[in-house]
């Protein structure tokens, strides 16, 4: 396959960025999208140019490091992570636009790499449980009803990639935060911090400069792990409940 790539190039956080056009040839349809970018970078290095910086780690679709907006879609046209997107989703001769996540809370560091530490601070605000650590407890010590376990697991699938923020026209982190809140709030292990968790995480989310939810549903469409939009409804419910219960 021969492709034309239009890639966002930006030297550093303070520099002005722009789209640059590159041609790549001999791309196999079995390559992953990141392998295609590796091919481009090898050529750039051989030509003595600066390779395109992009985030990646496990390349198995489970770490949440990769983060590209491909032709206007977070993680590209398939419902998966960029690393699990294959070039068979494109045609020979295609022009592909590659941009970084766009949100005020996710500033660009270089090229396609953005700073997602705002997510870490939301987790620090309440995305944990105060449990004694050490060896794993006996699995049946704390009974969890099956529907609750399923719900928690569905939300635990969130890998924190930030596609929801990238897709949201308001740069909101509602889907990410709600995945964490629902995951922990539904479980008995998360019960002691049920109220403070949702209040603190939502407050941190606001403080990081993420936008609010206008229920466009773009986040849930973009989510590679299929976190549903109703997750946000669940967090709203938890938040309202906590506001009534906790005197601040």
């Amino acid at each position, binding site marked *: 396959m021969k492709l034309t790539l239009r890639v966002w190039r930006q030297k550093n956080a303070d520099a002005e960025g722009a789209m640059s056009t590159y041609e790549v040839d001999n791309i196999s349809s079995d390559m992953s999208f990141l392998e295609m970018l590796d091919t481009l970078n090898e050529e750039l290095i051989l030509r003595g140019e600066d390779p395109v910086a992009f985030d990646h780690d496990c390349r198995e679709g489970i770490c949440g490091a990769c983060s590209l907006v491909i032709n*206007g879609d977070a993680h590209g046209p398939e419902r998966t992570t960029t690393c699990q997107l294959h070039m068979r989703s494109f045609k020979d001769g295609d022009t592909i636009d590659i941009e970084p996540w766009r949100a005020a809370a996710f500033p660009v560091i270089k090229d396609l790499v953005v700073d997602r530490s705002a997510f870490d601070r939301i987790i620090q605000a309440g995305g944990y449980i105060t449990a004694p650590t050490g060896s794993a407890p006996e699995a049946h010590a704390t009974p969890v009803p099956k529907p609750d376990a399923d719900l928690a697991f569905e939300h635990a699938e969130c890998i924190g990639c930030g596609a929801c923020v990238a897709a949201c026209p308001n740069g909101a982190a509602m889907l990410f935060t709600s995945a964490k809140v629902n995951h922990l709030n539904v479980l008995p292990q998360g019960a002691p911090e049920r109220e403070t968790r949702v209040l603190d995480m939502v407050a941190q989310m606001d403080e990081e400069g993420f*936008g609010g939810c206008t229920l466009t549903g773009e986040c849930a469409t973009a989510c590679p792990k299929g976190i549903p939009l109703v997750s946000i*409804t669940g967090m*709203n419910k938890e*938040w309202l409940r906590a506001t009534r219960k906790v005197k*601040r």
Partner: protein
Amino acid sequence: MARTVWDSSVGKKTVMAVSGLIMLSYLVVHMLGNLKIFFGSDEFNGYAHWLRTIGEPFMHYEWTLWLVRIVLVVAVIAHGVSAYQLSRRDIKARPSKYVHKKPRASYATRTMRWGGIILALFIVWHILDLTTGTVHSGGFQEGRPYQNVVDTFSTWYGNTIYIVAVLAVGMHIRHGFWSAAQTLGAGSRARDRALKAVANVLALVLTCGFLAVPVGVMTGVVS
């Protein structure tokens, strides 16, 4: 608690949901009341007079009406201020646009902000036209709403402004009602289709109900 709600984006959205639902329930009653125009001048004018005497003798003349007006003004202001502040936050949170643009979300969803502005302007015109009579075409007569309505919808601009606003309100409710349910935590997977259906039915019924009056005047059914 009030502070927590107002300072949070989730809380402010709750204010929008509650104030929106208050206005929506008013609109349902307003639309039903409007339809009395098809029963003739006496019944419609009599209905308008009754609105001022609700609650008597406990309430004084027009007290109930003013109570409703106050609640509505508070709802409009709360809705508008939180919409403005939330929109400012949203726009700030996404300063740079994508180069590769794609059509996003439904038309009703994308037009919530402009639709809201159109509706706010319409409310001002609507009150000046048919409540105070300040900008009314022809001689505005206090206590003769039937004639006033016919006058308004006998002008091309009266019809245009009204029809645009009614279509805007229909769109606004279509996304707004369902959104309010999500914001208040009332939505769920099982209920989602039902909520969307209720939103669509509400939007359609209100649009048609409100449009019936200008169409009635234009076709000569009401004159």
